[in-house]
């Protein structure tokens, strides 16, 4: 796939191309050993959560849709790690990672997917509608591209209130062809709104490969049509994602300049649980599985010598137990009462 190399010497590794030169704010602040380990823990927890969800779906515990994030974990973790804890984020329906990494416990997350009263949205949202407003995670949205103007609005409000926040608004590559997204891009640049549109390019819009749904396939270039910064970067490496996210986040925060950040990722599982994956080969999937974002960060942490193998195994063991306990807790939780049908409609 052809890409225009406009990378400046200052661009961090992982950046493939950009429509404008990147600003030079120096390196992103160092992550402490503990913080780094915590991001690894959240990536590992997300992976294990979804492996359990996969089983639960197959045994009929989860109804409706279930879109797994397996393979894309470095996107949510790397971008979130570049943000302040109270910067707003919003995404589409592939939202398990965004929810878990913004404070929804695996228990309430499982419970939501199992339709229980203890779910993070009381069983009214399901897999596609995870919300944790307390931690500035604003959903969890079902209509492709429909959340783009909402993310714009969160950022607009933060600027209006002079809060110095940036909103990261996520979408899949399939969303770039929706009108609402383009209207949001124009407004973002026109009104100088501190929002970064993160395109999680996993190469498929459901079963339609990006070459078959987008002209051009370099999705970051769509920013150029709005005089906006557009960047394409690799996204299987947590540190690389964090570095470029910090630059674009700070640019939005300091200069009210929006951007598109196209992150090149891959989902190891199907679009949803009902996807037979006839549109891609096992060879392709196996090739991408060689660069597993969870393992890449694990190896890097171990190679750094600051954490030993015993410590990381202990952490993983605790996560696996937490997932098992959370699943059991969710299963033991009650279903919502019928009267709940009529609550939370009006404030």
């Amino acid at each position, binding site marked *: 796939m052809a890409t225009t190399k406009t990378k400046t010497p200052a661009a961090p590794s992982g950046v493939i191309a950009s429509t404008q030169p990147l600003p030079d704010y120096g390196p992103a602040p160092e992550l402490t050993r503990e913080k780094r380990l915590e991001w690894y823990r959240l990536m590992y927890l997300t992976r294990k959560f979804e492996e359990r969800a996969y089983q639960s779906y197959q045994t009929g515990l989860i109804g409706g849709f279930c879109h797994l994030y397996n393979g894309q974990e470095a996107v949510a973790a790397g971008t979130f790690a570049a943000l302040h804890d109270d910067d707003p984020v*919003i995404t589409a329906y592939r939202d398990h990672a965004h929810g878990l990494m913004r404070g929804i416990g695996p228990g309430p997350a499982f419970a939501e997917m199992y339709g229980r009263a203890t*779910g993070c949205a009381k069983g009214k949202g399901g897999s596609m509608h995870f*919300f944790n407003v*307390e931690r500035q995670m604003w959903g*969890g949205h079902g209509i492709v591209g*429909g959340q783009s*103007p909402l993310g714009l*609005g969160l950022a607009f409000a933060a600027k209006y209130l002079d809060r110095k926040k940036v909103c990261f608004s996520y979408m899949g590559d399939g969303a770039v062809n929706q009108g609402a997204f383009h209207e949001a891009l124009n407004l973002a640049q026109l009104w100088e709104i501190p929002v970064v549109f993160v395109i999680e390019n996993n190469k498929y819009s459901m079963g339609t490969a990006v070459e078959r749904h987008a002209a051009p396939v370099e999705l970051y270039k769509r920013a150029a049509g709005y005089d906006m910064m557009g960047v394409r970067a690799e996204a299987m490496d947590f540190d690389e994602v964090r570095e470029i996210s910090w630059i674009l986040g700070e640019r939005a925060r300091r200069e009210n300049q929006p951007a598109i950040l196209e992150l090149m990722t891959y989902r190891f599982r199907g679009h949803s649980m009902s996807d037979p994956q006839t549109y891609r080969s096992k060879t392709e999937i196996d090739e991408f599985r060689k660069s597993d974002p969870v393992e890449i960060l694990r190896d890097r942490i171990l190679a750094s010598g600051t954490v030993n193998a015993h410590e990381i195994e202990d952490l993983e063991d605790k996560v696996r137990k937490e997932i098992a306990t959370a699943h059991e807790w969710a299963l033991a939780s009650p279903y919502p009462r019928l009267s709940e049908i009529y609550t939370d409609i009006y404030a």
Partner: protein
Amino acid sequence: MAKIAYRDAVRDAMAEEMERDSRVFLTGEEVAQYNGAYKCSKGLLDKFGPKRIIDAPISEAGFSGLCIGAAMYGLRPIAEFMTFSFSFVAFDQIVNNAAQIRYMSGGQIKIPIVFRGNSGGGHQIGATHSHAPENIYATFPGLKVVVPAFAADAKGLLKSAIRDDNPVLVIENEALYGRESEVPDGEYLTPIGKANILQEGRHLTIVTHGRSCWTVLEANQELLKMGIQAEIIDLRSIKPLDWPTVFASVRKTHRLVCVDETKPFCGVSAQVAAEVGRACFDHLDAPILRVTSVEAPMPFSSALEDDCIPNVARIVEAVKEVVA
């Protein structure tokens, strides 16, 4: 009480609420420098500045969604549609996001937003610009829908809508913007969900709303000459609808004619007729009749258009049939 034009009542409501609450802002096409396509925001840019009175590009989905996001974060936006016919371009934002995000989040989010603008036919602006969509939006739980007919309610309902913590659609009408009527002095609010009895009567009940209120009042002059005393109810609020007031009136008069500008199929009058038929079955002495727009897109020619929205002749005819 002073008499003012409906459009000035709309402007006064926005100005008073913006004065009161710095979180309130207005955006939409032509709302700032142009003073509003229908001059409903005249002078507001000068008074409140470009941070709060913001001209939007022609991007209904974009600016509606932006306003919904801003409301989620704590602002209180007023999004103006130049006409509610254009709101269909933002349909997904209104019905999936504004109406349902609170529910889907298990009550974590409030969306205090007002969508307002002109609606309705009768101006030879063709089928795409002439929709009366209050019945459509009223079908979505999570939305409130009000349709002011008079200046007092144009102001009082809009002020209530701006203070409401839910999405409220305030559906105005082009034919009414220039019409003057009395507005109370000083601060007041018109409650959402409360109908207004425009005239008490005993021979039948006429339930109406919006521009049709004026048409019904005109028809009433002929009814009075015929000795027919109609009880005329202006619903003002379509969702929630003031069923107790409607039921009490029908139980008193035993007859009902519904008049409104939505389409006949699944329109507001259809809903009123169904509910009254159920709740007042034993009290009815005649079939319920409806005078609505017709089952056709709005034609351009005035020779045709005048017959497509409720007019005096059709109202009088229906009343005569019901009281016969």
